C-alpha cells in the first residue's frame, strides 16, 4: 500500500472528527477463548466459546479499578476510542469513557465485551458450530442476561479481576449490571443502572414480538439458517430496527426533529418515502440491516423479554436483591417511555427495602430512551461525581 494512502487512512482527522485529547485513541479488540462448558439457562450447554472485548486504561496492581461496561440491544465491545484502520468507527459510549471523561480511564481500567450470541466477534448464531461445521443459526442457545453475566465473570477471571469496582450499563446493559449484583454479589462493589426496568411490561414484549415477527416472516429467514442459503432477512431486520428506533425516541424529539416535514413541498400521492421521518427510519433500518445479524437480534430481544430477577421469588424484587451488597446509582430520563422513570423507581424501592446504598436521579431530558447515550451535562456530571467517589 502506498504509505501516503495508508497515512491518510490511519489519520482519524480525515473524517472531520479529530480525536480529542480526551479520547482513549486507537484501540484494538482482543479475543478470549473459553473451554469450560457454559450451562445456559435454557438447558443447552456451550462446550466452548469466544468473547471479544476491549480494554481502556490500566489495571492497577491491586486490581481494584476495573469497570465493566455492559452493552444494550445492538451494542458491542467497542465502547470507546477508534480503530487504526477504521477511524470513523468510534466507540458507542466514547462520550463517557476516556482520559478525563466521567468514566476516567486515567483512573479506571474499563472493559467492554460483546455478549454471547452477538455478531461482532463473540460466539453467536453466525459462528461455526464445531459439532456440525456449519453456522449455529437457529441452533444457537437462547441466551439470557444471567448467561451473559456468567460468561462475563469468566472473562473477569481471564483478566485476573476478582472484584470489579463497578459495572455500568443502559437499558439491556443496565439489566446485566443489575444481574451482576445478584449473581456475583462479592465481585461487584458498585453498579450504575441507567434507563432500566426490573422486567419488561406487556407493551415492551409486544414491541419485541413485532420486531421478531418482521424477521421471522421474511422469506429470506429460512428458519434462522439463512447463512446456508447465502442470503440475509434484510427486510425483516430493517423493519425490526425501525420499530425499535421509534421506541428509543420521544414523541417530542421526533416532532422537533422531523415534524411533518416532507422531502418535496407537495403531497405526491404515492408510497415512497415522502415525510422526513419515513426517510430517516428507512435510512436507520438500512444502515442497521447491513451490519447486524438477524438471529442475534432475535436473541437479544428474547433476553430482554425473559429478564426478571424477581421471577424466582414470587415476583418479589426486594427478595431477589437480598443477596446484593453493592452501592447503586440509578438514573432514568423523564421522556423515556420505553422504560419510564416509574420502572427505575421499582428498582430503587427494592434497593431501599434492602437498606443498600443507593442514589437515584430522574434526569430531565427530552430525547427519550436514547438519552442514556447522550452527553447531557447534568447526567454526565452525576456519573462523574459517582465514579470519583469510588475508592480504589
Amino acid at each position, binding site marked *: 500500500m502506498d504509505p501516503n494512502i495508508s497515512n491518510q487512512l490511519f489519520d482519524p482527522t480525515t473524517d472531520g472528527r479529530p480525536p480529542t485529547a480526551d479520547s482513549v485513541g486507537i484501540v484494538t479488540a482482543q479475543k478470549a477463548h473459553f473451554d469450560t462448558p457454559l450451562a445456559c439457562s435454557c438447558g443447552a450447554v456451550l462446550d466452548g466459546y469466544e468473547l471479544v472485548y476491549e480494554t481502556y486504561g490500566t489495571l492497577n496492581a491491586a486490581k481494584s479499578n476495573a469497570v465493566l461496561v455492559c452493552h444494550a440491544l445492538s451494542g458491542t465491545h467497542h465502547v470507546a476510542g477508534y480503530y487504526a484502520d477504521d477511524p470513523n468507527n468510534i466507540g458507542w459510549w466514547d462520550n463517557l469513557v476516556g482520559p478525563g471523561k466521567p468514566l476516567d480511564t486515567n483512573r479506571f481500567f474499563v472493559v467492554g465485551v460483546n455478549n454471547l450470541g452477538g455478531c461482532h466477534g463473540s460466539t453467536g448464531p453466525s459462528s461455526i458450530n464445531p459439532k456440525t461445521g456449519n453456522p449455529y443459526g437457529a441452533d444457537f442457545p437462547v441466551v439470557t442476561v444471567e448467561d451473559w453475566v456468567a460468561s462475563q465473570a469468566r472473562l473477569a477471571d481471564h483478566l485476573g479481576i476478582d472484584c470489579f469496582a463497578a459495572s455500568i450499563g443502559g437499558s439491556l446493559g443496565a439489566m446485566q449490571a443489575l444481574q451482576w449484583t445478584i449473581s456475583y454479589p462479592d465481585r461487584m462493589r458498585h453498579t450504575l443502572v441507567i434507563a432500566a426496568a426490573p422486567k419488561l411490561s406487556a407493551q415492551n414484549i409486544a414491541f419485541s414480538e413485532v420486531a421478531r415477527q418482521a424477521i421471522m416472516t421474511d422469506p429470506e429467514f429460512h428458519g434462522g439458517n439463512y447463512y446456508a442459503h447465502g442470503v440475509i432477512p434484510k427486510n425483516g431486520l430493517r423493519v425490526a430496527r425501525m420499530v425499535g428506533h421509534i421506541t428509543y425516541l420521544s414523541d417530542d424529539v421526533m416532532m422537533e426533529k422531523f415534524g411533518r416535514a416532507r422531502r418535496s413541498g407537495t403531497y405526491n400521492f404515492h408510497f415512497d418515502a415522502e415525510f422526513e421521518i419515513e426517510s430517516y427510519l428507512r435510512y436507520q433500518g438500512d444502515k442497521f440491516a447491513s451490519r447486524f445479524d438477524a438471529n442475534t437480534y432475535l436473541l437479544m430481544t428474547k433476553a430482554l423479554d425473559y429478564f426478571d430477577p424477581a421471577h424466582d421469588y414470587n415476583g418479589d424484587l426486594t427478595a431477589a436483591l437480598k443477596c446484593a451488597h453493592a452501592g447503586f446509582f440509578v438514573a432514568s430520563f423523564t421522556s423515556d417511555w420505553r422504560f419510564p422513570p416509574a420502572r427505575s423507581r421499582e428498582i430503587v424501592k427494592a434497593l431501599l427495602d434492602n437498606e443498600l446504598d443507593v442514589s437515584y436521579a430522574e434526569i430531565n431530558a427530552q430525547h427519550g430512551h436514547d438519552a442514556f447515550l447522550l452527553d447531557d451535562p447534568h447526567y454526565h456530571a452525576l456519573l462523574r461525581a459517582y465514579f*470519583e467517589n469510588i475508592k480504589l
Partner: protein
Amino acid sequence: MSNIELNETILHDPALKERTDFAAIASWIKPGSKVLDLGCGDGVLLRYLKQSLSVRGYGVEIDDANILACIKNGVNVIQNDLETGLSGFESDTFDYVILSQTLQAMHHTESIVKEILRVGREGIVTFPNFGYWRARSRVLRGRMPVSKNLPYQWYDTPNVHLCTIEDFEAFCAEHGVRILERVVITADSVIKLLPNLLGSLAVYRFEKKK
C-alpha cells in the same frame, strides 16, 4: 416535653456552621440509627451524621443541583417530589425522618407529617418561627419580614405555610402528634424564655400519639 442544652461540640462543628438547626438535630440522633432526610439539600447534614454518628441514611431531594451536590458529598439521595408523598418507602423503616426548614414550603402539610410518622418511628421538623418578635414588628410596620431564616421577598418566596411555634403545637395536638422535645434557637443561642416571641427557629422531635 423538655428543652435541652445543645451539644457544644456539635453546635460549633464547622461542617454545620451555616445551619444552627442541624446542631440541634444532630444532638438528638442516636449513633448508628437509620435516618431519612426530606428536602436534604446538598446532603451536608447527612454527611455529618454519617461521618460523626455512623448513621445510615438517605436524603430526598427534588432539585437537580442538590442531587449532584449530595452525590459529590457521598450521601445517598433519592430524587423525588415530597408533595407526592413517600410511597417509595415502607412503613416503620426509619428511626428518624427529618424535615428541616421545608415544612413551611410544603403545599400538603398534613399529608407530609402523616407520611413522616408512617415511615419513621420519630419525626424531626424545623421551621422559621413566624411569631419571632422581629417578624411581628416588620408586619406591624406594614411589611413582610425578610431575615436570615426568611430570606425571601413576598413575591419570590417558596414558603406557602408559614406558622408560629404556637400554631405548630396546636397543629400537633389536633393531628395526633406527640411532641417529645423542642429547641428554640435565635442565632447560636437556645431560647427558653418566651420562645414564641424570642425564638427565630424552632426544632421539634415528635412521634405518633399512642
